[in-house]
């Protein structure tokens, strides 16, 4: 009580002194460049501590000393502006938005700091730019916005793109840690809307990320959601909708049926095989020239053998559960089916978000909700999301206690192929609808004579599934996700400068999905049974964080120390079941496991893990010139055995603001110049738990045996071998950087150089089979990897006549990032490890001295021109005229597996992006370009389209194949039975992957609100935007953005058929009330 009395007396006294000084009052309005009033902008008197914030309609009234000359107006996300008040009493200030406000407060790990005080490598992403680009996931919009961050998108609705911060640091999981409002989160982000994000920071180097310790190896993305500001409720409605158009000009081009028939002819004649009597002759005849069949199939007769009696429609019998009575009649599509056209369409998308933000003296709130609906450009796929979110904060005890919460509930519903998958690209592969579209011949029509799906049934049409049929039959497959994510905190000021904060948060995710299988009798390997598989599960995680912070300033010293504890517990469990043979077809309401009459199965699995941590941080700065920061974290993880349970991760960094030195005052063109350097350690614990134990298991599939001849008896096996010495993977990194603001704040940017080394890399070194059979090899700490790189971003801001709100302003900027990844060492026993096997092709390798996932195979040095040429060249089984000639790497005169070599780097030399934002009068325009340079793509679809895998559709590239009259060609001639060595991984698959893509063009108009409506409507902004408008690339596949292929390890840049990105044309409206 005593203290409060003292405070009040001081306050009264202060007011008294204020009031006796001579004063005058200035009123005014603060708006954004587009005229939108800015609520909560700070207006202070230059040279004086007095300040006010703007009210709901952007107005302010401030009492200033008589001698005051100017006001400084600032607002987060906008450039500070000094306005002269000499001789003025009412002013209007239009602030210009900016990404470079150095006083912006950013959250960097259990605390926040001014952007200008950051000593590590932190990319602060301009959220207004993020929101410009319509996207399901905030990650998608992050592409190109920060240096060192590589985002690879695909076109699937609800997808969370692949994100890599400064390359791959591990051969395991390389996804960053997300920290959302202080709560750690790992996984897909499709449940979070970009509109709700207030700020986003990417902690790229160890000195910044090390405070997150054992989970920070891959970088940390800090996401802070919107909070309310003092003022009346600000209601914002954001609506956009539009259409997505598949990039039809990028579809692969195929031989038409007549060309295909000729191709088959050539295949046989080149291989010295007679076409007569072959299966292919059934389709294309065996006369002098190939002819096309009228029918592909009638019952079990194929192609030209179909008689008119057999093709009589009265024979037709579509019996999808009885293969013996099934009688389908299919006409050949002699013109050729364009399967990519068939499976894609223009698809609508729309988004609605409503938010209410506001607050009073002791509280604020932000409540929002939204609905999002995106149809996929691949038919029968879609993603819907609905959510509500609330952030509220309260202040009590005169500001001594702050409490608050933020919480989001979201529901998403994803339908069909490749939607809302857990890992980017996990759906890709030869058995996906896109994969089938590469593999199904063009002579196959979409439908048979009675309108049922046609397919490859018969022989000689390959074994592809009709991709449209697969999509159609998957139209009722869904996966639902219900997620609650939220936390509550209390922050208590114990004494001035000393704060104690405790935060408790939970995530509860409940998911469910069903997948219905229908017969695909039209396929050559079709099944004649319907089936259902269903899964449900939940994940729960709670996090309890406590920090104690002491912040003190005296004179020019600013000192902050923070210590904390954190406990995290994660648990999950899932249940799955299946069954088949349902009495009804197509009636989704009948499909429950209870109505399955055969093959009922069930299973469940679960996990349990805990993390307990202590951490601390010290920040010191002297006169804004010398800034030091040090952090340390000690993590204990249940993933590791009792002996290696704890790991410690220190880091330190320093910055020198050169521009604040006295000797720099004369250098007027430098506004701000800061040198930074940091070093630190982070960890990775992202491996399956209990690698330190040898475990045994009983299971029906793996160990049971009908030892009595009938019923199964339970056995037991060693399913996983142990490594008692398993511990953290550790990454140590250096970062040196430079931030600059030049020429009256017109140019700003930063430059970073880094060197990261991962050691004790967690790697499931495959034990020899003789030591573990088929059991799992434990992870061991062995091997190392390095990532080195440089990053540069430069921005130029043009602002003619800042005070005029009709001024022409623009910003232009570029980001360039280069990262060089190299595997330094694997286990001493392991020479290399090949992976990424699909059919006869193994694309990728882990090998010391090479980047992670380097492409590996034979190097094509030409085409064998003649028998004589083959005789003179190093030989291999199956070498033939018109086939590949390989480089004899070890010069032993023969081509063997030892002659495989490194044939391409999946990583770019650099990635870059450009943006241009301009505004004039009430218009503004944004352009954004994203690009990659120098990466290679392993176009594995060529196995099917160029090298005859499974009699698939054949690329028009083959028209230029080698022949005795086209001897310069590097494309192998058609050949009926090319050898496994010829179609094995080789440099023919490796294609240039550079691209330059116009990611976004947006043009907006900000309406002038008539005076009479200003009370009701603050602003109206209407925009049109287009994404992916053009792409410049030499890549021959569907889309140069190729997400990693999931294999034993992830295989970057291996294209087996992605969900391609589309062009989007949208119209949006943003109204603030």
């Amino acid at each position, binding site marked *: 009580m005593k203290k409060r009395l003292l405070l009040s007396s001081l306050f009264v006294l202060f007011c008294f002194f204020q009031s006796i000084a001579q004063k005058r009052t200035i009123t005014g309005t603060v708006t954004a460049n587009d005229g939108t009033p800015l609520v909560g902008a700070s207006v202070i008197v230059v040279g004086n501590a007095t300040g006010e914030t703007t009210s709901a309609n952007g107005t302010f009234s401030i009492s200033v000393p008589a001698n005051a000359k100017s006001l400084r107006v600032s607002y987060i996300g906008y450039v500070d502006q000094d306005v002269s008040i000499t001789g003025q009493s009412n002013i209007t200030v239009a602030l210009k938005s900016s990404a470079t406000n150095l006083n912006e407060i950013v959250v960097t790990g259990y605390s926040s700091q001014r952007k200008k005080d950051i000593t590590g490598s932190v990319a602060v992403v301009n959220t207004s730019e993020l929101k410009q680009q319509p996207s399901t996931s905030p990650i998608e919009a992050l592409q190109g916005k920060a240096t060192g961050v590589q985002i690879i998108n695909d076109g699937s609705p609800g997808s969370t793109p692949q994100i890599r911060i400064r390359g791959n640091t591990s051969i395991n999981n390389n996804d960053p840690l997300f920290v959302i409002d202080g709560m750690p989160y790992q996984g897909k982000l499709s449940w979070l809307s970009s509109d709700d994000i207030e700020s986003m920071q990417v902690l790229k180097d160890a000195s910044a990320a090390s405070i997150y310790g054992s989970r920070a190896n891959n970088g940390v993305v800090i996401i802070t959601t919107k909070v309310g500001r003092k003022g009346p409720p600000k209601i914002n409605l954001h609506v956009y909708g539009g259409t997505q158009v598949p990039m039809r000009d990028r579809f692969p081009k195929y031989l038409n049926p007549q060309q295909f028939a000729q191709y088959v002819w050539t295949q046989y004649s080149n291989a010295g095989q007679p076409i007569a009597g072959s*299966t292919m002759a059934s389709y294309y005849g065996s006369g002098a020239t190939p002819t096309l069949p009228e029918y592909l199939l009638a019952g*079990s*007769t194929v192609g030209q*053998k179909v008689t008119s009696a057999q093709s009589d429609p009265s024979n037709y019998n579509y019996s999808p559960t009885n293969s013996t009575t*099934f009688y389908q009649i299919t006409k050949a599509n002699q013109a050729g089916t364009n399967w990519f056209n068939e499976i894609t369409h223009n698809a609508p998308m729309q988004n609605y978000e409503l938010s209410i933000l506001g607050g009073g003296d002791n509280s604020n709130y932000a409540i929002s909700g939204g609905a999002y609906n995106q149809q996929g450009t691949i038919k029968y796929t879609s993603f819907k999301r609905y959510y509500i979110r609330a952030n509220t904060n309260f202040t009590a005890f005169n500001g001594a206690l702050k409490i608050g919460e933020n919480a989001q509930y979201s529901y998403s519903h994803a339908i069909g192929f490749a939607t809302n998958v857990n890992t980017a690209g996990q759906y890709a592969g030869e058995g996906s609808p896109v994969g089938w579209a590469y593999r199904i011949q063009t002579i196959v029509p979409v439908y048979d004579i009675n309108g049922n799906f046609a397919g490859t049934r018969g*022989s*000689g049409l*390959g*074994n592809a599934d009709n991709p449209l049929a697969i999509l159609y039959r998957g139209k009722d497959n869904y996966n639902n996700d219900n997620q609650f994510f939220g936390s509550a905190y209390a922050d*208590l000021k114990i004494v001035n400068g000393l704060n104690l904060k405790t935060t408790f948060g939970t995530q509860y995710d409940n998911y469910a999905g069903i997948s219905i299988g229908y017969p695909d009798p039209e396929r*050559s*390997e079709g*099944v004649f049974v319907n089936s259902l598989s269903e899964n449900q599960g939940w994940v729960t995680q709670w996090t309890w964080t*406590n920090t*104690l912070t002491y912040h003190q300033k005296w004179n020019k010293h600013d000192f902050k120390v923070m210590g904390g*504890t954190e*406990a995290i517990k994660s648990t999950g469990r899932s249940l799955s079941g299946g069954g*088949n043979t349902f009495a009804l077809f197509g009636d989704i309401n009948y499909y429950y496991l209870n109505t399955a009459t*055969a093959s009922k*199965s069930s299973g469940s699995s679960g996990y349990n893990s*805990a*993390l307990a941590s*202590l951490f601390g941080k010290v920040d010191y700065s002297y006169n804004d010139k010398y800034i030091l920061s040090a952090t340390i974290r000690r993590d204990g993880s*249940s993933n590791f055995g009792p002996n290696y349970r704890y790991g410690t991760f220190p880091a330190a960094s320093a910055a020198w603001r050169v521009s604040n030195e006295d000797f720099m005052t004369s250098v007027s063109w430098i506004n701000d110049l800061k040198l930074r350097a940091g070093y630190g350690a982070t960890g990775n614990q992202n491996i399956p*738990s*209990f690698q330190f*134990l*040898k475990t*045994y*298991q*009983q299971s029906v*599939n*793996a*160990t*049971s*045996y*009908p030892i009595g*001849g009938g019923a*199964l008896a*339970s*056995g*037991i*096996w060693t399913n996983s071998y142990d490594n008692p010495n398993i511990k953290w993977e550790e990454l140590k990194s250096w970062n040196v950087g430079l931030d600059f603001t030049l020429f009256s704040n017109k140019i700003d940017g930063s430059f970073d150089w880094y060197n990261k080394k991962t050691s004790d890399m967690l790697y499931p070194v495959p034990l*020899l*089979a*003789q*030591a573990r059979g*088929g059991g799992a090899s434990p992870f061991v700490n062995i091997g190392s990897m390095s990532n080195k790189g440089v990053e540069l971003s430069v921005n130029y801001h043009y602002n003619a006549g800042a005070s005029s709100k009709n001024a022409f302003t623009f910003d232009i900027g570029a980001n360039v990032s280069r990262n060089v990844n190299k595997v330094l060492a694997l286990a001493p*026993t392991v*020479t290399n*490890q090949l992976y990424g096997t699909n059919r*006869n092709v193994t694309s990728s390798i882990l090998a010391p001295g090479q980047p992670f996932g380097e492409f590996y195979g034979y190097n094509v040095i030409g085409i064998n021109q003649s028998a004589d040429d083959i005789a003179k060249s190093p030989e291999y*089984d199956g070498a*033939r005229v018109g086939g590949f000639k390989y480089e004899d790497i070890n010069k032993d005169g023969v081509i063997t*597996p030892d002659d495989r070599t490194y044939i391409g780097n999946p990583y770019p030399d650099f990635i870059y992006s450009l943006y241009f934002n301009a505004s004039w009068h009430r218009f503004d325009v944004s352009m954004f370009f994203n690009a990659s340079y120098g990466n290679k793509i392993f176009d594995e679809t060529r196995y099917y389209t160029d090298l*005859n895998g499974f009699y698939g559709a054949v690329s028009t590239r083959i028209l230029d194949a080698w022949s005795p009259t086209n001897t310069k060609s590097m494309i192998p001639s058609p050949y009926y039975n*090319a*050898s*496994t060595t010829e*179609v094995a991984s080789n440099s023919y698959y490796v294609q240039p992957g550079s691209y330059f893509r116009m990611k976004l063009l947006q043009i907006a108009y900000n309406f002038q609100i008539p005076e009479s409506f200003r009370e009701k409507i603050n602003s109206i902004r209407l925009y049109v935007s287009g994404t992916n408008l053009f792409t410049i690339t030499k890549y021959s596949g569907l889309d140069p953005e190729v997400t990693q292929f999931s294999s034993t390890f992830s295989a970057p840049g291996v294209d087996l058929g992605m969900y391609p990105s589309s062009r989007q044309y949208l119209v949006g409206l943003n109204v603030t009330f």
Partner: protein
Amino acid sequence: MKRTYLAAATIILMAAGVSCSKSFLDTQPQAVITQSGLQSQKFVEGALTGAYGLMNGNISGTWGNYSNAPSQWLFGEVGADNAHKGSEYTDQGFMNDIEGHQVTSVNDQLPSMWTNYYEGIMRCNSTLSLLDALQNSSSTEKFASDRATQIQAEARMLRAHYYFYLRRVFGPKIPYIDETMTTPEASKAANDSDIYPKIVADLVFANANLPQDYSKPLGDVGRCDKYAAEAYLGKVYLYGTNEGIDNKYAEALALFKDVISKKGDLTSMKFQDNFDVEKKNGPESIFTVQDVINPDGSGDNANVGDMLSGFYGSAPASCCGFYLASIDLVNAFKVDANGLPLLDGSYRNNPYTSDLSNPTASYKLDTTIAFDPRLDYTVGRRGVHYRDWGVNPGNGWLRDATTGSPFVNYKTMVDQADFGAYTQSGVPYVTAQNVNIIRLSDVYLMAAECAVETNDLSDALTWVNAVRKRAATLPAVLTGSGHPAADYSVKPYPSFPSQDYARNAVRFERRLELALEGQRFFDLVRWGTAKTTLESYHNFEKNYTAAASGSGVSSYSFDDSKDDYMPIPQQEIDRGGGVLKPNGYGH
């Protein structure tokens, strides 16, 4: 003041949070058992059951277990003169290299064979070491000593089987791991010596310690018994003696005779019952892989190794069109006017190729050809009833005859009437058909081989003729119009005029009787006839089908020094850091 309390309370809570973190981190592994829980009879028996569980060649899953099939169809038959890979040329392209003997160390069929059979060995070793730990513990739950010995015998018999399979494929020198070795020790075991003596030692032990009354341990039909041990030991002696590293025709013969005398009359047992899923584990069964459909209808414990031999197109089981019989094999079933096979190779004259050159509606089956009736219980051909599936329509059930042949497999499939109970639901080419590792007629023919080599031609004649007499009892298979599909005939040999004649006859009989049961290539290698047989075969076969050519080459050649065995998988060599040396086989 309130604030101070609050702060104090929170700091205490934080401290509590840190101090209790030790137990906080003690989570338990989910859905597994750790070693401490295993010292009981139940788990030792469980480990043994798990060891039997690898007899079906795979751990779990259905697709992908081809080379490790217990039938050894790929190495044993496609790699020989009996079968083609089938399917389309580019499908499972590495199998073409096995068929054409162009195998490199990166052939993708090698690792699954290698890994799965070592898993079988691990399970046997694990059984032996868990048994040892239990019996040497203070536990009150020990086994009585006779069951303990039986368990040892069973586990060692299985271990011998797994090593024998590996040795047949990868050659004599492969790493040998036993139950005394730790994981790091096993990782360092080199492939520097012939494991033949170890296989023999395990089988000798099994033979001496399995129930001497020939009963099955614990009465379970799926367990190995003394019949199996005798027959297997004899078989291994035969291989060792053929290879010139042992000299045990007499010992082998004694073992085979014992089995023959105790098993009863072969002619009373029906040939076709061996391939009838409803008559599994019949009297002829000696060592057999047990296959079942799981209670939930899935196929992970079924005969997944042979699943690719399902047919194509409109056939009741219509995937995947692999494993087709060769033209040469089918013609080898021709008999002369005396009902005897054409041992001089003249069966290749004017070969029967079904509708291969005329796959049209106008094709008519020639039913006048004199065939051994076992033909239509070994392959399916156009115009002939196939099991109860109906009349084989030819191309309608084939994937690509020109890449394989027009002849589908009989022994790996089951009757359509049995689809419900004995095939995976909706996937009828995954069947519960058992796989014979050794059946009685194999023992008869091995006995005959030993007799020929010890120049006891009359015994050899008796055993070969027993097999032939039994074949003569097979009912005729009919055409669509109800006529016998061939002029069926099989008669006993009147005599064996010479040892060479007898040897040829016994080997020919072995090919016919055990065709498409995974023996052929290994027989050719142990007889030392692989080169001559296969080169002659390819020169014949290539006139009819593209499959036999091998890719890109016009003349096939077989090099014993490269092709008798498979190279050790490259991935194992790369992982071993020098522990494993390439064995010199492969291209």
